[in-house]
């Protein structure tokens, strides 16, 4: 998986991409050397699967994304917002995609796109912030400082030694990626790392290695950036994507993720998000362009992953904090709702549509009822994709949804109970 690099090849690769501008300092080649040795000693991650999480912030209107287009109630409750039957992209005789999702339909037809319907949790919370926190921490019952992905990353062997065991594309840290032990870096754009390479780095490193308790967390964030920059500089290859990406922030983030995947960074989880889904008013056009952005971004990313020959290793999960009210409001928009579909892009999916569309006749306070707990989706991702026991990570046993056709044997669990019981600190 990792090609041995000669010092010269290594320098050439890092120099072209990172534009060092100065001769690579000693530590850079020492780092590459150390990594090479570790690889030769047989160090391998427990498995090499990658999860990419895409967060749609604001509450995506699931009902206008995966549309029960033959349902008369749909048209009654959405007099101005219902997508006309002849515009829907049909998936079967009942369900269709929003017309701006034509690209995703090609993934669906190729068996690379799955819709998990009616996902939510009991007593749905209609606050953006609380509901997002619930999805990210996988805990609807109490406020908690770690996220489901951070807790997963805590269990990955040697996670502490990999500076980019997980990576957030963006400048804010989602609680989903906060673990008890791991520190996941955030990066606005890979270009940002440039300033951290070179003669500065060593003196900064010394300055940020602090003993003082108040200062240490800040120093650690800076060190995390320095470490991540080093690692990227050492490993980034010259992969040139043959796939054109749209010029949206989401697509740009996904393109950088693809670049990192192509560089074999051993990163397990990538996280990115895109906003604007809180469509309380004049929703139709806005929502169409949002969905188009998601559809085109995801499709470009997936085609890229296929083109680099890594489709077997990558799974994408797309979620939002809630769906929207079934009946439209008086401003051609929709208010906060409950259950909504979750999307998965990947190879080896069991089927394109998982679960039933929630009934429009049996609403809860005007909202769709969930029939799949979001933690069952997470359980499938954790157990059947990442190969770990989900129970301790999700604080309970949730039956995995039937997502993947072939599920791997369960690997040995690497966490200890004491770790998982350790106090929750944010």
């Amino acid at each position, binding site marked *: 998986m990792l090609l041995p690099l000669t010092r010269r090849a290594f320098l050439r690769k890092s120099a072209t991409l990172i534009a060092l501008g100065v001769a690579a300092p000693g530590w850079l080649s020492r780092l590459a050397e150390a990594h090479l040795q570790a690889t030769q000693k047989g160090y391998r991650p427990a498995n090499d699967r990658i999860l990419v999480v895409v967060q749609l*912030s604001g509450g995506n209107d699931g009902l206008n994304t995966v549309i029960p287009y033959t349902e008369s109630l749909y048209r009654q409750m959405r007099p101005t917002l219902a997508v006309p039957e002849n515009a829907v992209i049909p998936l079967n005789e009942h369900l269709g995609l929003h017309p701006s999702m034509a690209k995703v339909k090609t993934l669906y037809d190729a068996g690379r796109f799955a819709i998990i319907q009616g996902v939510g949790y009991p007593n749905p919370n*209609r*606050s*953006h*912030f*609380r509901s997002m926190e619930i999805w990210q921490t996988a805990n609807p019952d109490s406020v908690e400082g770690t996220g489901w992905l951070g807790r997963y990353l805590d269990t990955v062997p040697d996670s502490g030694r990999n500076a980019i065991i997980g990576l*957030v594309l*963006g*400048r*804010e*840290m989602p609680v989903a990626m906060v673990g008890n032990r791991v520190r996941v*870096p*955030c*990066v*606005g754009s890979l270009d*940002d*790392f440039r*300033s*951290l390479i070179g003669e500065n780095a060593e*003196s*900064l490193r*010394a*300055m*940020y*290695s*602090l*003993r*003082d308790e*108040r*200062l*240490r*967390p*800040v*120093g650690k*964030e*800076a060190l*995390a*950036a320095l470490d*991540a920059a080093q690692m990227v500089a050492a490993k980034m290859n010259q992969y040139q994507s043959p796939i054109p990406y749209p010029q949206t922030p989401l697509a740009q983030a996904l393109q950088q993720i693809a670049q990192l995947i192509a560089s074999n960074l051993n990163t397990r989880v990538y996280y990115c998000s895109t*906003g604007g889904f*809180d469509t*309380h*008013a*004049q929703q139709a056009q806005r929502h169409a362009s949002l969905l188009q952005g998601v559809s085109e971004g995801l499709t470009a990313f997936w085609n890229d992953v296929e083109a680099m020959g890594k489709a077997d290793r990558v799974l994408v999960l797309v979620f939002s904090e809630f769906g929207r009210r079934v009946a439209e*409001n*008086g*401003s051609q*928009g929709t*208010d*906060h709702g409950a259950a909504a579909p979750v999307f998965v892009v990947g190879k080896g999916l069991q089927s394109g549509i998982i679960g039933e569309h929630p009934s429009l006749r049996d609403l809860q*306070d005007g909202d769709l009822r969930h029939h799949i707990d979001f933690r069952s989706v997470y359980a499938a991702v954790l157990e059947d994709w990442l190969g770990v026991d989900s129970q301790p990570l999700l604080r309970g046993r949730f039956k995995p949804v039937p997502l993947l056709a072939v599920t791997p044997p369960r690997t040995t669990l690497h966490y200890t109970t004491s770790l998982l019981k350790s106090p929750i600190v944010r």
Partner: protein
Amino acid sequence: MTERARIAHLLRRAGLGASEAELDYYERLGYRGAVDALMSYDKVHEDYSGLLAQIRGDAPQLRMPHVKAWWVARLLSTRRPLQERMVLFWHNHFATSASKVNRADLMLAQNETFRRLALGSFREILLAVSRDPAMLLWLDNHLNRKGKPNENFARELLELFTLGIGNYTEQDVKEAARAFTGWTLRPQVGFQFVPALHDDGEKQFLGQRGNLNGTDIIDILVRHPKTAELLCAKLFRFFAYEQPEPAVLRALMRTYFDSGYQVGAVVRQILLSEAFISPKAVRTMVKSPVDYVIGTLRCVGLAHQVTRAIQAQVVPRAVIALLRGADIAMQRMGMSLFYPPSVKGWDWGKAWITSATMVERLRFAESLANPRTLGRAVLPALQARFGELGDEQLLEQLSTLLDASLNDDTRRAILRTVQKTSAGSAPKLSTMLRLICASADYQFM
């Protein structure tokens, strides 16, 4: 703690940083006098009337970059720092983003409303915000009409602006939305109440029944203990530290009610409290991008350039570039003024620091120390003033200038780096400036 140290703390938290000049000025008034002076900012004459036009130049339309540069100019040059800090507080509390409002004039007007009511009555502020055109557009209340209410404004009013989550029911949200039907906008006019769009029916809100309208809802909300708790705790957090002690919070809530919801009374009590100048507070708060960027620029004297330009009624291109640069730096650090990430505002405190934002702070420090970028306006004066000093004295002087308090480890690391720097490369002063601003210590206030 010396009086000067206490006043420096006051200026970091209730002002926009403790520059030497401000520290000298307020020190003469004593701590209590300094609090009074900061709070009675009406007595300080400021004239920004021509500024926006100068920034706008001959642009056919007022656009957000003009408004952003205008606020940055005020933040950099104001002699009423507490007033601007309160504008920031309200901008974060009633977080409205130009990304959706899409009207620079309305974003400007909202900012001026926050400035006008900065330390005023919370009831008045809530009423003004509920009628504020930018807010009406932001949370869709301009489209909220009888029969088909839009819940967006009502929900955030309860969840974020007043009671806080968990203190109301979904039914309360729906009823409050009905009460605000007909609070809408008329083009070219602004706020307008349209009776035909208003739902006159009976509503039940937080246990009260009647034909309630938006003002009734606000009256019920301002006198609710949960509103007092949320606002007082948030103000305390903004000025002092994370968790106010229960007794401290209770005392603030009492003041909120006794004063008739006067925000100024609550703020004064915070600033005069023992908690505020306790070790738990001093230098424990992570600087927001405004504190980091604006505070640094005010300390190194760049503010004077802006002040001079404003007084001369001519804002040169270089100063506009500086304003833009400061705005973009803050944006990259996670705080784009007028563009909060959501109606909840920004996450403050430790959340400001991620590996990505630390990289941005590093970059800012580098550009401040670079004679070809921001440093061009800073380094010559510093060189003239401190150029002859030995390493340790220089570090001491620069730390004082920047109001930085460096830990021994940090100081040693900086001195070691400076001593390694060969004479010909970056001058010691600029290396030191860069490292102080990049240090973990300097991220705290």
